[in-house]
């Protein structure tokens, strides 16, 4: 519904996919902190925010603080982009009583700028979600990286960090799927090999072994051999590692 209106509004320089992404981003932003402007709920929301900030001071949690700053920045970026869209989308150039010509010849660089801002914004949303207290939100952040066109190194580092240190098994599992598209990167190959050795959860270990087979990660052979021979390791994991060796060998 919104989506249809948006696509009609967007000039020719912006394709369907892009407007889809825009739509998705707005929905995403709506899903984060969205205080309604009625004062009663604003108040409780505000209290919640104050509580959360207090908490960061009691037990220092710089991550949480960063989340709020990021969300603020994200909101500001959307504001800028929204104004941009409004400007481009003026029917016949008559909005604000402006006299801008109706042709879109001059808008290509602006669209490019908008696109890059859009990209930064979506990265920010992903990173901020990956820092949340709730495991479901962190999974959302991890999955969201799958929709980024050319994710920066920061996104890949955040995914690797999550794979190594996230306390929740299901968040780590989701991270393995998200890392698949970066399997060619050296840091991802090293990170996954390190993770399979340190991992406490057998299900995550199996998923990592599958990842290595799927992405033909030949550097992992020594590690897989070690896992297959280690009597301390879960039997199913040892069997999977042996199978992985066979596939890679």
């Amino acid at each position: 519904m919104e989506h249809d209106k948006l696509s009609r509004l967007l000039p020719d320089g912006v394709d369907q996919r892009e407007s889809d992404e825009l739509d998705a981003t707005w929905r995403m932003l709506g899903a984060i902190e969205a205080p309604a402007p009625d004062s009663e709920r604003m108040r409780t929301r505000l209290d919640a925010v104050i509580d959360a900030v207090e908490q960061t001071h009691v037990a220092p949690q710089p991550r949480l603080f960063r989340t709020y700053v990021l969300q603020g920045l994200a909101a500001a970026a959307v504001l800028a982009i929204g104004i941009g869209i409004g400007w481009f989308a003026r029917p016949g150039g008559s909005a604000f009583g402006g006299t801008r010509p109706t042709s879109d010849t001059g808008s290509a660089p602006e669209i490019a700028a908008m696109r890059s801002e859009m990209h930064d914004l979506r990265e920010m949303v992903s990173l901020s979600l990956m820092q949340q207290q709730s495991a479901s939100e962190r999974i959302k952040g991890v999955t969201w990286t799958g929709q980024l066109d050319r994710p920066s190194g920061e996104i890949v580092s955040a995914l690797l960090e999550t794979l190594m240190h996230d306390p929740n098994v299901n968040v780590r599992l989701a991270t393995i799927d998200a890392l698949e598209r970066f399997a060619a990167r050296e840091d991802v190959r090293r990170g996954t090999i390190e993770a399979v050795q340190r991992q406490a959860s057998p299900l995550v270990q199996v998923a990592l072994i599958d990842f290595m087979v799927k992405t033909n990660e030949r550097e992992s052979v020594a590690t897989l051999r070690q896992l297959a021979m280690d009597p301390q390791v879960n039997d199913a994991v040892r069997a999977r590692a042996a199978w992985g060796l066979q596939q890679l060998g």
Partner: protein
Amino acid sequence: MRNMKRILGYVLTLAALAVPVSAQPSEPRPPEPPLLPQAPPQAPAGDANAQRVTIPLSDPSRPGTVEMDIVMGNITIKGTNRRDILVDAHTGTGFVPRPPRRRADDEPPPAGLRRLTQNGGFSVEEDRNTVSIDVGPPRHIDFTIEVPLRTNLKIETVMGSIVVEGVEGELEVESVNGSVALTNVGGSVVAHTVNGKLTATIARSAPQQPMAFTSMNGSVDVTLPAAVKANLKLRSDQGDVYTDFDLQLRRESSNPSPNPDVDTRRNGRTRVIDVDNAVYGSVNGGGPDFEMRTFNGNVYVRKGK
């Protein structure tokens, strides 16, 4: 022009939101509220090895959070109409050898004497709507906890099962050597067990929130609302996947690999099924990702009422 106004409306709303949110961290902090006095554990009459603690929430109008991470013991959590949290702890059924000279917990005190030490060996603390339950040195304690209907949970046990009934919120539940059973729950669920069966009946799912239900050595059996909108990621390495949902199968995962360095042939359909035996599909038009996965066992996804 109408659309224009609509867009401007969005932009202004977002601007209005941006200001308070971004301004928050620099606001002066109000003074810390004093910690609520903790109610000492009291034994319910007639049961010497049970202890009961009721603890209020700082702000009952907001959902509280219950956090616990124990080593030995079963955990049962029930959503009720109460506004505080009731913790019932039951010891004495454990398989843990006790220190040799310690009196048995369920032994009645000698005539005329009353016991001063607490046999519970656990503590309950509330801080800004988060209730943390801690058990001291590893011993077997079973917990039955009553919480308000809307409560977030972060519950872990190593040797024990977890049951959650009628709670709505962000539910994070994990067991190592026990089953996990969630009935009539709502919100978002992220659940895992290593050596147990995982069953869940979701009455209402939170929109746009991903969920995950995974096990290593047990079946995963999840009932979702019939109208749920979700993208399902289903896999069983050594078993099968069953559903009565009308699943629109997708050939690739939600993370397509645009990376030219990865050999796409190896990521093609047959290869994916060979490696992880995964099924990706959407129900009711798709939505957030729900992952159901087990290594040894079947995955069942059922359509609820």
